[in-house]
């Protein structure tokens, strides 16, 4: 369990490399990462985008894949895009906007 918590933290840290270049914040700070679950060496990343039907999905998905694949102990990365709940600016970590 302790190992998983550490791995979870490292996955979150890796996800902070994936930024929204316009807002200038990473997807964790923006509150776009809804959930991360670990199953052995597989990481499931549940995320959203700031706009429904956002065409940057592939770029974000690619960034998540690249970032989390670098984490030692993770061999499989599975990004899942969801729209429920819809993202809103209130989900951003306080003090960043």
């Amino acid at each position, binding site marked *: 369990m302790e190992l998983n918590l550490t791995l979870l933290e490292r996955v979150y840290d890796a996800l902070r490399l994936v930024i929204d270049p*316009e807002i200038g914040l990473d997807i964790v700070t923006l509150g776009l990462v809804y959930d991360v679950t670990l199953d052995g060496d597989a990481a499931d990343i549940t995320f959203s985008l700031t706009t429904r039907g956002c065409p940057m999905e592939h*770029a974000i998905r690619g960034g998540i894949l690249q970032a989390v694949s670098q984490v030692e102990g993770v061999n499989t990365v599975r990004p899942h895009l969801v729209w429920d709940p819809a993202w809103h600016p209130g989900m951003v970590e306080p003090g960043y*906007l």
Partner: protein
Amino acid sequence: MSAAGVSTASSPPLRLPGEHFAAGLGAFVCGAIGLVLVAPDLARGAFFLPHVVAVVHLFTLGWIMVSIFGALCQFLPVAVDRAIRWEWLAHVTFALQVAGVLIFVGALPTGSARGVHIGAATISAAFLLFAINLAATLAGARTHSLTWWALAGASLFLAITPVFGVVLAINLDQGLLGAERFVTIARHVHVAIGGVVLLVMVGVAHRLLPMFLLAHGVDSRAGGIAVGLLFSGALLLAIPIGGMVTAAPGAILLAAGLLAFLVQALAFYRHRVRRHIDPGMRLAAAGLIGLAAALIAAPLALSAGLANPQLLIAYHLLLLGGVSLFVAGHYYKIVPFLIWYHRFGPLVGLRPVPKVHELYSARAASIAGGLLMAGWLGLVVGVILGSPLVARASALVFAAGTIVEAIAVARIAQRRPA
């Protein structure tokens, strides 16, 4: 992500919007230098001079329209989830537009009727081909959003606007319009601005302003009303018969459409979550304020007509200046993002990458914006006061702003990962 506002997997290669933006900025600088030359004429109320008309078209056809074409090539896949239908045709359109503007603008001051006709025909071909490409792209869209309707309307007027232009070009040496010449010019200007430029601005702003300003959940009914009013107004003005029967209601509908757009844009700015407004959005806001001023000046200027040429010129300066600043502001949003997307985007997740605003100097952008706004405002004041000195000095300031902006954007284009 908000960055999705300007790019998708089906976006064209950087070269397509890039060539448009480079040429657009070149025309912006050349137009501004031309403005320095013609500013005293404007202050004296003389605007039906060939070299003045040439400068005006450097701004409208070379700066505004080339920028719009480039932005649409990039934006269409985002707006309608379809890549531009014929990418090769967009390159052809670009080449025709640039060649046409060079021929047309070069021929006007030299009095070459043949050059004016060839230039006008070439530009018309570019407009028509772009309209076809735009319509074909929109036809493939699965959903019809406000942006879709705005761009569909603009595609119609892209085809109509050059008809007026060609008629006016032929009229230059054949005089077939007679006393109708001035009314035809007014229709030409307002169909182009209302039917093409403003409709595109409404459609693009509906998608981009909420993203750039982080203004989510804003009621967009005013934007929808703006599309309907601008389309109806431009359509009435495009009917070359009926005199004031079609012109007056057309102008009123256009004005109401512009007002609705300004209300919509104000709502986006007011409901933004990020309180800090970056230099690009500040410049765009200044452009919107200019359009509001044009709206107020329109009834006075258009009713006075040729009886008060300075007021008429000031009105057109507010109108074209407002659009110009709105476009210039978006260069600081779109160009850095394109460079980021193509050069830094593939590195996301592998290493820290710069943010969009880190690709340019906010100070340089603010200086450029300040010069553009001060020069433009001074020019309007100089014309109203009838002072050639104030007008020329202000045009110099404006020209300095265009040069600083062009350098700033060129430096953005050179940014690459270390």
